């Protein structure tokens, strides 16, 4: 049985938490090179979530604005509806009965 998507996400989250905890512990040491950036290390999850949020908003909006408007398809369909009605009437189909 393969992992569910939920399990995959939890695994990823656990892996990231471990990595982040290590960074935080290192940054807390006064002589560690990360000590100067302790705040940045602490805020890392929030920064990453924020960046992903911006990416998501950008991507979704881009896709909304580039979502094709199928004007031609609608026109073609309207023409074909007229053709169909004409052709079906000539074959004995009664549109009146269904109105």
């Amino acid at each position: 049985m393969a992992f569910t998507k939920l399990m995959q996400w939890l695994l990823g989250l656990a892996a990231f938490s471990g990595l982040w905890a290590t960074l935080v512990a290192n940054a807390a040491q006064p002589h560690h090179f990360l000590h100067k950036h302790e705040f940045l290390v602490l805020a890392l999850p929030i920064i990453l979530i924020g960046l992903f949020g911006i990416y998501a908003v950008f991507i979704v909006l881009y896709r909304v604005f580039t979502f094709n408007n199928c004007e031609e398809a609608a026109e073609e369909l309207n023409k074909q509806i007229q053709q169909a009605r004409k052709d079906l009437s000539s074959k004995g189909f009664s549109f009146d009965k269904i109105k």
Partner: protein
Amino acid sequence: MMYPKRETRSAKMARDNEEKSRAGDKYSILLPTYNERENLPIIIWLICQYLDKSGYNYEIIVIDDGSPDGTLDVAKQLQKIYGEEKIVLRPREKKLGLGTAYIHGMKHATGNFIVIMDADLSHHPKFIPEFIKLQQEGNYDLVSGTRYIGNGGVYGWDFKRKLVSRGANFLTQLLLRPGASDLTGSFRLYKKSVLENLVARCVSKGYVFQMEMIIRARQLNYSIGEVPITFVDRVYGESKLGGSEIIQFAKALLHLFATT
């Protein structure tokens, strides 16, 4: 000198056989209807236009769920014009849901492939030959129409509708990674055995049913081909995306996230 010649001949025979088996393919188009008396004659006319031209063997199975507007009478008129071979009527007494409509339709389907589509003209039959061609090229287990890639698109959607659609799609792709770009569309071609297997496993109702079908397909390692389609929404005013649909969608998404 004889050997290569013989090989060519056997290769040719293999090719002929392949063509023969393709010639034996039949496509059963399932049209579940509810109050579609205006659209049914048009959609059937279009299907016949495009499939007769392309030469594929097909039948249209109309599954009407006791429409009060007389859709079934319209279907009967059409059956007289196109014949009982082409138009097969399998009505049910009342509205019983999409999944059971497919099961019901499939029971009577004589094709080895099943096409499912909406009868409200939002799905154009001109794409069916494209589905078939792609399926043959890649021997796909299912081919799904998609509004989200290539020349695909929609007509008649305002900004809000597009935003909800794109947003929901983004979230679904992120959480489920389904290997298909359009999950809630319902214009698809299936191998019959594949559709039978999928329908038997799906529990959702309504339009999230389509999403579950494609997620289960991925879970079962079925191959999925995609054809860009134009989706012409002519039903103005009546938005299909109300609050209850969004809650339904969110529930289904979380359910599939936790279980697949």
